[in-house]
């Protein structure tokens, strides 16, 4: 699907994002480097002042004033420079977030089976943060530290070539030690992170299994186990601290060694009169600047390494082509009547769980639904009812030439039109943490209040809404937690009905609604859907019986098809189901009384 990319370092992929803010980024970098140049002026001025004092011809006003001027200039260039570069970091994070959000909205079921919500959230939060750090801080370190080293050494060379050259052999040694320890720190900090997530996982698993642990009196052993894990973690952490501290101390000693060269060799040069005391002092000050890249190189390398893997993880998502998308030659229908023709439709779910018996979800289904017809689909769990509806609305993609809407292959229609003309009410009533009314007008927030109330009444939600103190403005909470199962289902139904689409698909969306209410809703629905196509999936005969046609699915195949009367007369699976369910209806009231009272109670199995 995706053309093979040449194997370049993942961080190069961030370059276009940075280049989108090129002026700010490179302008900021230049300002920071300019600031470094200005900073280099201070040791020179200090040296000049000292030399003038040493010569007995003191000139203090100029160096003191010049340092003040440098201070102001340097402040301005650093302030602006850092601000610009860090802003680019913020912008890159902003742009990536926008891209990611939009891209995720285009993905289909295969994608979401591959990446869990938790995984995607982790990428959007942590990886983005790492990239931002790299752009806003890491890149700055890269350029600035490099520039500092070069500037400092350049000036030192002009001041005293002899003394500067003596410092050179030390550089690779310091660099090597710095690199060695920094690499260890990178490894150790990864281990610490892993250790922490292992520790967290153990605590979580343990507390989730607390009942088993208590029934088997395993508390003491589990505490011991946690202690062991916690001890390992502390040891790992200590190793990281050790390396961190060792790096700091090593750099201190190495800087000391470089200072010794300046003092020993430079001192003798001063005594010989080859180098002035002011230059000697300036050298001491330049040393820190010169060593800064090797000192802080480790931090920088870590930032880059982290950001590289973060970039890879972000682009793993962004490179994922949407599996369901418009065909190149997709063209919309002018008007949609609502005739559906299904020809030899088969579908096999990808990546079905191992071990479970696997049969195609749908097998050679052929079906014609005339415009304005109401069709009920019945069958056991796993018989392919939901799959069929999902294929119709292209939540799953059917093979080309299997599903036609008004004579046109749905694969050749723009996805937007399919979803515009076919409303699908899913089994699981997902509500958004918003007002009840906003949930009903989810497809178009500009709908009128009358439309909302009409839809709500048909879904038998009117009285419920009136019961709430804030009516339509009632906040339903995350996933609609403040509503009961039945209320959620009816809200979800109203959300579908309000659209008045030529085709309406209802996926078993009365399961938490009692039969009496369901009957009321179905009666109103029939009036509403006069002349419009409706397909409803159910496992209740009572839901299906008034449909123009009833389809019985079994293991992905149509086993019976006809009107209620036809199927009852034929005495097949449908008739058997009807017989069993009518028996059940006798005791329905008893059961429903329980459902109603237990619905709002604490669920006992998962307290």
């Amino acid at each position, binding site marked *: 699907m995706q053309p093979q990319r040449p194997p370049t370092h993942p961080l190069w992929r961030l370059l276009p994002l940075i280049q989108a803010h090129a002026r700010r980024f490179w302008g900021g970098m230049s300002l920071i480097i300019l600031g470094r140049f200005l900073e280099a002026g201070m040791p020179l001025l200090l040296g000049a*002042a000292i030399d003038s004092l040493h010569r007995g011809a003191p000139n203090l006003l100029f160096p003191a004033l010049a340092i003040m001027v440098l201070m102001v200039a340097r402040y301005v260039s650093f302030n602006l420079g850092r601000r610009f570069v860090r802003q680019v970091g913020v912008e890159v994070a902003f742009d990536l977030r926008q891209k990611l959000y939009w891209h995720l909205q285009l993905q289909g079921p295969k994608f979401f089976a591959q990446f869990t919500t938790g995984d995607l959230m982790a990428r959007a939060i942590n990886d983005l943060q790492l990239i931002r750090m790299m752009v806003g801080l890491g890149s700055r370190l890269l350029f600035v530290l490099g520039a500092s080293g070069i500037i400092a050494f350049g000036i030192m060379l002009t001041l005293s070539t002899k003394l500067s050259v003596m410092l050179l052999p030390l550089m690779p040694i310091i660099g090597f030690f710095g690199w060695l320890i920094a690499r260890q720190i990178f490894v150790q900090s990864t281990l610490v992170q892993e250790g922490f997530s292992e520790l967290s996982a153990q605590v979580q698993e343990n507390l989730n299994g607390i009942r088993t642990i208590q029934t088997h009196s395993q508390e003491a052993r589990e505490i011991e186990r946690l202690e062991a894990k916690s001890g390992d973690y502390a040891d790992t952490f200590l190793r990281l601290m050790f390396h961190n501290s060792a790096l700091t101390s090593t750099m201190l000693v190495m800087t000391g060694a470089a200072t010794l060269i300046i003092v020993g060799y430079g001192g003798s040069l001063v005594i010989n009169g080859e180098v002035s005391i002011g230059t000697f002092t300036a050298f001491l000050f330049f040393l820190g600047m010169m060593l800064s890249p090797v000192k802080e190189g480790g931090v920088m390398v870590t930032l880059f390494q982290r950001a590289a893997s973060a970039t890879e993880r972000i682009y793993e998502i962004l490179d994922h082509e949407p599996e369901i998308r418009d065909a190149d030659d997709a063209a919309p229908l002018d008007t949609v009547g609502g005739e559906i023709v299904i020809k030899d439709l088969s579908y096999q779910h990808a990546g079905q769980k191992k071990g479970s018996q696997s049969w195609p979800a749908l097998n050679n289904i052929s079906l014609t639904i005339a415009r304005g017809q109401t069709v009920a689909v019945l069958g*056991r769990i796993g018989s392919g009812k939901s799959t069929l509806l999902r294929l119709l609305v292209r939540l799953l993609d059917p093979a080309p030439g299997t599903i036609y809407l008004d004579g046109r292959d749905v694969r050749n229609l723009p996805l937007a039109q399919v979803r515009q003309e076919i409303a699908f009410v899913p089994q699981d009533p997902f509500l958004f943490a918003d007002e009840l009314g906003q949930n009903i007008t989810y497809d178009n927030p500009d709908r009128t209040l009358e439309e909302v109330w009409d839809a709500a009444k048909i879904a038998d939600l009117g009285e419920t809404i009136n019961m709430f103190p804030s009516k339509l403005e009632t906040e339903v909470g995350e996933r609609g937690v403040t509503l009961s199962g039945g209320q959620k289902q009816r809200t979800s139904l109203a959300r579908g009905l309000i659209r008045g689409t030529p085709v309406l698909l209802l996926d078993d969306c009365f399961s938490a609604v009692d039969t009496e209410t369901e009957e009321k809703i179905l009666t109103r629905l029939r009036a509403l859907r006069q002349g419009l196509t409706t397909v409803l999936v159910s496992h209740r005969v009572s839901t299906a019986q008034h449909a123009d046609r009833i389809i019985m699915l079994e293991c992905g195949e149509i086993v019976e098809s006809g009107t209620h009367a036809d199927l009852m007369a034929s005495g097949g699976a449908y008739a058997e189901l009807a017989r069993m369910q009518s028996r059940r209806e006798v005791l329905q009231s008893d059961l429903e009384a329980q459902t109603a009272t237990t619905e709002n109670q604490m669920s006992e199995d998962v*307290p």
Partner: protein
Amino acid sequence: MSDVTAPDLNGKKEDDRDYSVFDNDIEGKRFDVALLRRLLGWLKPYRGRALLSLCSVLISATATVLAPVIITRVVVDGLLLTENALPDSVEAPDMGQRALVGFVSSFSALDMLVAACLVYAGWVLMAGLFSHLFRILLARAVLNGLKDLRRDVFAHLERLPAAFYDRVAVGRVMTRVTNDIETLFELLSGFGVLLGEFVPFLVAMTIMMSINPQLTGLLLILMPVAVVATFIFRLASRKIYRDIRSSLSRLNENLQENLSGMEVVQLYQREEINFRRYSEINSANRHQENHAVTVESYYGPAMDSLIFLAMASIIWFGGAQVIAADVTLGSLILFASFTEMLFRPIVAMGEQWNVVFRAMASCERIFQALDWKEALIEPENPQPLPTPLRGEVRFDHLDFQYRPGHPILRDVSFTIPAGRRIAIVGPTGSGKTTLIRLLCRFYDVVPGSIYIDDTDIMDVMPGEVRRRVGVVLQDFHIFSGTVLDNIVLGDPAVSREDAIQAAKTVNAHPFIERLPQGYDTPLVERGRNLSHGQRQLLAFARVLAMNPDILILDEATASVDTETELVIQDALRKLTADRTSIIIAHRLQTIREADTIVVLAQGELREMGSHDELMRARGLYATLYELQVQDAT
């Protein structure tokens, strides 16, 4: 009959517990010394190390400060400027460094400059070594102390009764053992960082004071400027950071909800609108982030500017003193080299500011968990369960509620004769699970009683009840460890042979033998490397190995293939043979094979009898049974 606290009093106590405190967000508001003192209590066992660490930082700070004294006072003043007309600089204090270098020089017959270099190297090495020791010793003390704290919190949580976990989400307490302790590490090691900055600063100040009090005093004037700047910066950025945190969490909430409801989003073509809303939050966040960047850009370079200001002052005022021959040139350079050290403690303090508040909140959360007192009622005069046990179980007028006003069990009374196999059926929420949880003493049985062989289980220690009553929960836990460990569960009475025998009995032996290391194969947490059916068999083997007098089983609802199903059913039959067994049954086979079926609904006992009797009665059981038949294939 029972000698425990009066039921109604106990009920009241339960109601008084406010579990919602665990849901509240605790924000650290102020610096609480009492909390800190309590926290430091955990470091007490490691105070020796902490003290050594403190000594190390003193030594390293002194060495750090003395090293530049060698360069400036000894080398510059004493060796490089000897031909100069400056007044006798021997008078100026040098902390005895010149004498030390002189001693080394005469002792080793080396040139003074070389000797100075040697001494300098000595100081630098000492500074490096002792600063390392300081950090390591401190880290070790802190890590060990926090490890103990973690164990204590965990041990406390581990022993809280099941009722606690019914009401408080695991996610709400687990972070107290993990993330909150991490924050405390940040806090305590942050103190270390401060110490590492402050001690050298103080030593340097002392030396500077002794050399040139006027110039030192002048530089000290700059300190309040730094403090004020830092304070203003923290104040200005605090609100921005809070805004950023809130916009970030709104971004994440929005994304999370969109991902969870993606199907609806796509079906209702909300992509554009949702993207626009997300963009709005994202833009707000960008604005705040940029604001924070601006504020930080003002602050950071400003602190460095103070160093320049200090340098200019040293040149101007110090230079004048050099001209007046009040100080030596070397002292001037020494002052210049200390400037960088001047403002570091203040910057470090500013950085620790936020950590302190976060850590205070963490402290509060940890102690909140640690201080939560909740336990099952233990009898004053515990009685043992009779040995051997016949296994008769009698439920006597059992009432139970998790929350007041929401009864789960209502006046349930029935008797299970010894050795019988009972299936409990009923719709979700009928009280089945609660009933068996009461029997294995997850909760206090009040009001009403449960008798095992005529002994009220409230008169028996909960541990004793659990040793005699074996339970297989629906969400049983597989421990990380080997297969054998998972069967034996630390019971010294169970030998390897016993375990293998148990596994054989419940048909687990064949699959265990096929594992790479047989009984010694390590299992991942939750047994993810086993199939569902295998885990079920392992749980059976585990409970059989403990050879309980009464067996309780909450049958798993997950579907398995037919072959595994047959194996499990067979294992179940062996498990329940000759033993009082109570099974919350979900499978038709299990229900059919029970001696007696107990039908619960709405917390009440509705029907009881054999399958045939109940089918004939055409009551609730018959309905439930047929529904089950319909759904099963």
